[in-house]
């Protein structure tokens, strides 16, 4: 059944089976491959996108559930916080392979948008759902702190 979604500010009409997670609609139907598949069961955060500004795991979110909402993916996550996060990420050379980093960045943007000066504990709880097998964790923590300082 065709439904219309609002993705990165654009209306997109997609035809996917009912219940198809947003992740696969983004990746396979719309060619937006920034959000990644890491587990499919909301355990790793690689698929994180924003729905009406809040981070969700797109791998377990049926695409029809976000009809009428604003979906933002890494490809067009913009604004002051996003820029600060990206600048800190680049400055500290956070990504290694980079595969988890779209999810990390989307989680980190939301953290700083809702909490301008997070504590270590805030960072731990906001970022714990995002696995990084390259283990960039120490730099992620520092980059979030650095980005917060520039805001």
């Amino acid at each position, binding site marked *: 059944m065709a439904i219309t979604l609002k993705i990165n500010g654009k209306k997109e009409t997609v035809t996917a089976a009912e219940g198809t997670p947003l992740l696969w609609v983004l990746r*396979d139907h719309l060619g937006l*491959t920034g*959000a990644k598949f*890491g587990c499919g069961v909301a355990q*790793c955060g690689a698929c994180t996108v924003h729905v009406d500004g809040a981070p969700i795991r797109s791998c377990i979110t049926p695409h029809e559930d976000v009809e009428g909402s604003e979906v933002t993916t890494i490809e067009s996550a913009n604004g002051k916080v996003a820029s600060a996060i990206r600048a800190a990420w680049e400055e500290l*050379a956070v990504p*290694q*392979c980079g*595969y988890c980093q779209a999810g990390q960045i989307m989680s980190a943007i939301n953290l700083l948008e809702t909490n301008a000066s997070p504590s270590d504990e805030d960072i731990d709880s906001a970022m714990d759902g995002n696995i990084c097998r390259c283990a960039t964790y120490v730099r992620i*923590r520092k980059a979030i702190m650095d980005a917060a300082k520039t805001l």
Partner: protein
Amino acid sequence: MFMHLAKPIYQTPDSQIENTSLEIINVSRRGFVGGATGLTFTLALAACAPKKSESKSKSEAPLPDHSTVESGPLVLISIAADGRTQITNPRSEMGQQVITAVAQMIADELDVEWDKLVIEQAVGDSKYGDQNTDGSTSIRNHINRFRMAGALMRHMLTQAAANEWGVDISECSSKLGTIEHSSGKILTYGDVAKAASKLDVPAEASVTLKRRDQWRYIGKDKPSFTIPDIIHGKGTFGIDVRVPDMVYAVIARPPTVFGKIKTLDDTAALAVPGVTKVMKLPDLQGEVAAFQPLGGVAVIATDTWAAIKGREALNVTWDAGSNANYDSDLYGQELRATARKPGEVKRNRGDVDSAMETAAKKVTADYYAPHLSQAPMEPPAATARWTGDKIECWACTQNPQAARTTVASLCGIPEENVTINVTLLGGGFGRKSKPDYVAEAALIAREVGAPVKVTWTREDDVRHGYFHSVSAQRMEAGLNEDGLPVAVLHRTVFPSINSTFGAADQGSDFELSLGATDSPWNVPNMRVEVGKAEAHIRIGWLRSVANVYHAFAQQSFAAELAHAAGKDQKDYLLDLIGPDREIDLSKDGVIYPNYGASIEEHPLDTARLKSVLDKAASMAKWGRDVPKGHGLGISVHRSFLSYVATAIEVAVDSDGNITFPGVWVAVDAGTVVNPANTKVQMEGGTLYGLSNALYGEITAKDGAVVQGNFPAWRVMRLSEAPHNLEVHIMESDAPPGGVGEPGTPPAAPALANAIFAATGQRLRTLPLLGQKNRLTMAGEG
């Protein structure tokens, strides 16, 4: 929207190349040649054979997919008329920043501006020499030929300018993309590129490589080529590849290796919306798995999700086959029992048995480490498209040449008909050296008649991998009155990686050389033995390979001996290593591949080992008092020609939870191409080791792997990572060692030693937080 991998994939911001083509085939030169600038020349330098010693010892390495380094591998560099310089990177990028390192090595001698560099990714082709990106080899095995290629090219550009001016080359010199004549005349590389491309490549002897103090890029913190894309969600990984009219496949594989389909009913699967086809894959052939796909049933659909749902709806039963009874618990007990019995001697010095008899004190310990999964964040994925009898594949592969030969042989076509495009890899850690998933895509695409992407789910990755070997080890030592060992026995038992490729019933000399037969201890009587162990699942490489379990046993045991002797861990370890010297293992009858390098160039140097140990200790402020529940542990290990010491302060709370007040790493990797990235690799390697040490465990029951997704297969998360992780790189002008893997081995024993210091509990079974250990606070254990 679609892949165009053959075009330049990374370019610095100032060197935009007008590449507007979105087609897949043959775009490589179009943007480059067809732009406003016109002239270009491509130089294939075949003159740069690796040093003899390297190719000799390389061919001795027994592992089958270490392709032999041939003479004359190509280094491809193109210079456009406007000076943009395209480097074709033959190695696989998986986060180790190899693209940047290759650019540094070539551009340094070529003497070209950094922001003129453009990177193109090579396809898999033996003309590029060794492309297998494993064993931490990209720099240590290739730095000289990359530098030489840059130098030869600079020489040719200089010669072309001299010809143009009608002067002798000795009056001309290069300066960052230009050639200057002593009169002050200047030509740019772009001006003379076309003329230079017509010259013969000079003999290597006609150029002088720069002195170390003249290096512009080597040894400097040049930034990553990939990060600017990554942070915007750009950059194409294997799983991201899209080609027109493609379909999507997932595969139900036999739960056991060499299992087969018994019955298949695909009615329900075909009724799943989006599923278009269900097909059987060929069973594993012959006696060994090697790089073959595991067989099973492929479900093809219009998107990945439909394929996954279709697979769930399959009604399939399996013949478990020859590995039906594999039970990793029982098997582990067997390994432990084997480790208690004499094995085959692989190193012998003096007479261990008689020395043991006269020792003042005897210490023994049994260590165990389970199977592990590499679990790169991006699971294996590959896309294949047939055009007639030719196939093009796109894959996140560490080993594109093995992918090419595997696809060719399984499809029965000549290698020339197979193109393997290498994408970015979302981590590899050894898993992606095996191209079974590329062959799956090729076989399915042929049957389907459309381009197919095969995606492995996380469960597929964890259950159907090439697993890090399980191991049991026995350590025995006889101590003298001073508490120092007069005799040491190290017996190691593990199924070999070689079993994946041929008959092998015990660990290979190569695997034994990774931390067992190369022990640097200064003990008069020493014996290393290997025991029998057959494999029942596919065994493969994992970051730092057998060093993981060997360093765990050896460096834990060092601390145990220190404790038995009533001495400080670090001081005792220094004593064990003994005087500064280069160890000659051949005297003890060891077959020692030395990671494919010559022992003259890369001796086993105890002074370097001790100095990283001292450094890590001083970084950790070794010897200080720590709060109750805290403990300091240390270890040191040489692997992949680099020396790494790790000191850890651990805090264990009353529930047995572990945190890390600090982790300190000192590395001597010889000459370092990119210090900033070397630190990153040490951080990543250390935490990869800690994650495995704390949580990593793959078990098997009835021949099948038990774990599937996270968190059953548990990995370190951010809240579990140290807050303070410091890395120090030792100054060294020794030839480069590896950097991607050597950070991993010392992590686990340093942690076990720290836990002992904190709690008094000696944990000899990995994972440290696994069910077989019950960690408690000091005094309660």
